């Protein structure tokens, strides 16, 4: 079974500064990887996903993520954060191409606070 770790529970960043959120996964093969964002009182919204191919993935709201197989990581980045980026961010890993029914495993989340 796959697992996912988000080492940072909480990150504070100034508006306009760059942001990087870490995600490490454990899985025997190439997993499917996702980043979701949860704004207060809302459900989760998909930011981007990686299945195969180009390891640098572009998403919505100016986010990108890079899959690094050697480091088992899928870190999320944004060059310049906006106050509206304050939210909880979840990395999720799925079992990849498989014939069996799989499920997403979510990380514990990273809360991002944006200061003026």
């Amino acid at each position, binding site marked *: 079974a796959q697992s996912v770790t988000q080492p940072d529970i909480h990150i504070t960043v100034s508006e306009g500064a760059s942001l990087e959120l870490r995600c490490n996964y454990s899985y025997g093969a190439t997993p499917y990887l996702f980043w979701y964002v949860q704004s207060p009182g809302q459900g989760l919204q998909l930011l981007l996903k990686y299945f195969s191919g180009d390891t640098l993935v572009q998403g919505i709201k100016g986010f990108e993520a890079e899959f690094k197989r050697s480091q088992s990581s899928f870190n999320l980045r944004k060059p310049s954060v906006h106050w509206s980026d304050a939210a909880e961010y979840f990395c999720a890993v799925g079992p990849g191409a498989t014939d069996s029914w799989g*499920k997403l495993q979510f990380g514990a989340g990273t809360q991002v606070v944006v200061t003026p």
Partner: protein
Amino acid sequence: DTAVSQTPKYLVTQMGNDKSIKCEQNLGHDTMYWYKQDSKKFLKIMFSYNNKELIINETVPNRFSPKSPDKAHLNLHINSLELGDSAVYFCASSQGPSGKGNQPQHFGDGTRLSIL
């Protein structure tokens, strides 16, 4: 024209009561899910249905019973509510099971269940 809608949004009730949460998706998806998010924001899958068939049934007390009358609806009934059931419950849907295809999940806004 909400994609995944849950009702009610808030549910406050007493211990021992029985309650239901309803979920509907208008995306034409085949697969629906129930997740529980605890007070630390940890998100854990409870159930998943594909075309009305139960495919994922995690270690959940049998007081929780999902029902899928058709593939656009997945309801969750909870008997004999306990204090530990207090959480946010999210419904989600995807075109196919996340582990069997490259399909991200679309989430509802959640139902905040508080047990007094």
